[in-house]
């Protein structure tokens, strides 16, 4: 197994003194399920967005599949982005369009500008969309408008849109933060499934320590823009959680029981 993603000395600076990320480094293997946890404002979202250059890092190196993402020109960047799917907390679907149209949006990156503009998709792409929607249990909603769906269903459409890209990696920015516990579990199960069965690397930002402990192969803990923990869930101790969340950790007792259970 080789590292699909290798991040070295990544630094992101907003303005003059606000450092969102400082000297971040880690590696992710192909097919791994990695969670990034940390308090709000620790730089989790920024880190994720640096990887597909939605945010430009100040310095450092991000090797994805053998290329340094930070040096890419516009056209090559687009090509890399087609290989990385992204899932968002607020789903970010086009509400007025149908589920299948939203799913097919994932294909825009590898289409010519004109056919993308006109929304012309070939039979193969449509069949793939149907297939993926079927996998995510959305058969009955194919022609429903996105704004008629529940949160969990919307997020599944978000996952479909990412999957139709045939990605090597999924970046999930707090995918379950706005969902109820039931839908959250469904979504996490799907993500885990994708990582295990399709061999797609999954990188998830999470708020919930217990969820991270349960699903991840590897956990990256961030605090104040710095990596303070990298390791398997079973190596995570109470002290580690305290380091990640600072003094707030006192209130996080609820997951203490889960640490060595999994």
């Amino acid at each position, binding site marked *: 197994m080789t590292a699909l993603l290798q991040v070295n000395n990544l630094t992101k600076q907003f303005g003059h003194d606000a450092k969102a990320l400082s000297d971040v480094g880690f590696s992710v293997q192909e097919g791994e399920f990695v969670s990034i946890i940390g308090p709000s404002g620790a730089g989790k979202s920024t880190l994720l967005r640096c990887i597909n250059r939605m945010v430009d890092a100040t310095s450092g190196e991000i090797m994805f599949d053998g290329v340094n993402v930070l040096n890419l020109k516009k056209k090559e960047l687009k090509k890399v982005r087609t290989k990385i799917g992204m899932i968002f907390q607020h789903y970010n*679907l*086009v509400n007025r369009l149908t589920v299948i149209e939203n799913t097919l949006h994932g294909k825009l990156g590898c289409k010519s500008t004109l056919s993308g*503009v006109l929304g012309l998709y070939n039979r193969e792409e449509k069949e793939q969309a149907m297939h993926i929607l079927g996998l995510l249990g959305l058969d009955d909603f194919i022609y429903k408008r996105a704004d008629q769906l529940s949160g969990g269903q919307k997020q599944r459409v978000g996952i479909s849109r990412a999957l139709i890209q045939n990605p090597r990696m999924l970046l999930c920015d707090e995918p379950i933060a706005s969902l109820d516990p039931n839908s959250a579990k469904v979504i996490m199960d799907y993500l885990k499934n994708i990582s295990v069965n399709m061999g797609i690397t999954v990188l998830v930002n999470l708020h919930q320590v217990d969820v991270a402990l349960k699903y991840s192969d590897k956990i990256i803990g961030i605090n104040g823009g710095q990596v303070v923990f990298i390791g398997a869930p079973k190596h995570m101790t109470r002290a580690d959680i305290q380091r990640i969340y600072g003094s707030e950790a006192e209130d996080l007792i609820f997951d203490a029981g889960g640490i060595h259970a999994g």
Partner: protein
Amino acid sequence: MEVNEQISAQRQLLKTRPHNRMKVKPLTKSAFVTRITLFSLAVLTIYAFFTFDYKDIDFVDAVLLTIANLKAMFFEPHLKHFTFSHAFYQVFVTLGLAFLTTLFGAVIAVFLGLFAAENLSSKWISTMIKGFVAFIRAVPTVLWVLIFAVAAGLGSVAAVIGMTFHSVSYLIKAYSESFEELDKGVIEALQASGASFWQIVFQAVIPSSITYMISWTFLRFEINFAVAVAMGAAAGAGGIGFDMFMASGFYLDIREIGAITYFILAVAILLEVFATKVKRKLKVNA
């Protein structure tokens, strides 16, 4: 214990409440200025009525004559210098002028509106376009037509250019604001999957704001119809407005003006009814 403390705290509050009248609206500086302005306007108005130069007009006479005129205009309308079919045709000329300028305006405004929307273009370009467009809007349409008449000569060409000019600036503001309604995250999501700018525009931005765009465009069409009537008279652009100008300024036929007014009113009502229907339909789908 805690509950008791809360209750006693509330009692304290009740006791210390002052006994004078309670004000719902505090007298702030802006409220004060508003009141002063309204008051001085009222005083000025009353003062003006006493100091007008009435010449030798008898007020009652003047009112009666005006009513007689209005009666002639609206209760005894007739067409003397134009036939019914001619007037009907001229209404379509005016409608055509309104339609053409709205269409030109809409097409140009869609593209410029994209660059004027802050979420789709850079802050700098957006501010520049919006500022420029605000300047164009500040000058009335009629003035733009007259300005272009310097180059194109008074007539339909100047009217089309001038009205298009103003429609563009109006619609850019309307469109760019509806584009800005779109959540930044949606654009981000498509960018992250490698979609290009124009793909994002046609697959996400326009589908999301199409109902706003249609209703704004229709509103502009109604405005343009009214302006087109005025342009017929003021800039010789033809259409029903020109006939009205002839009826009043040339033939001095007040009954004919009444007939033409009815024509314009009928079209305006039809447009309004149609617009309401379209908007209701859009709302159902929204």
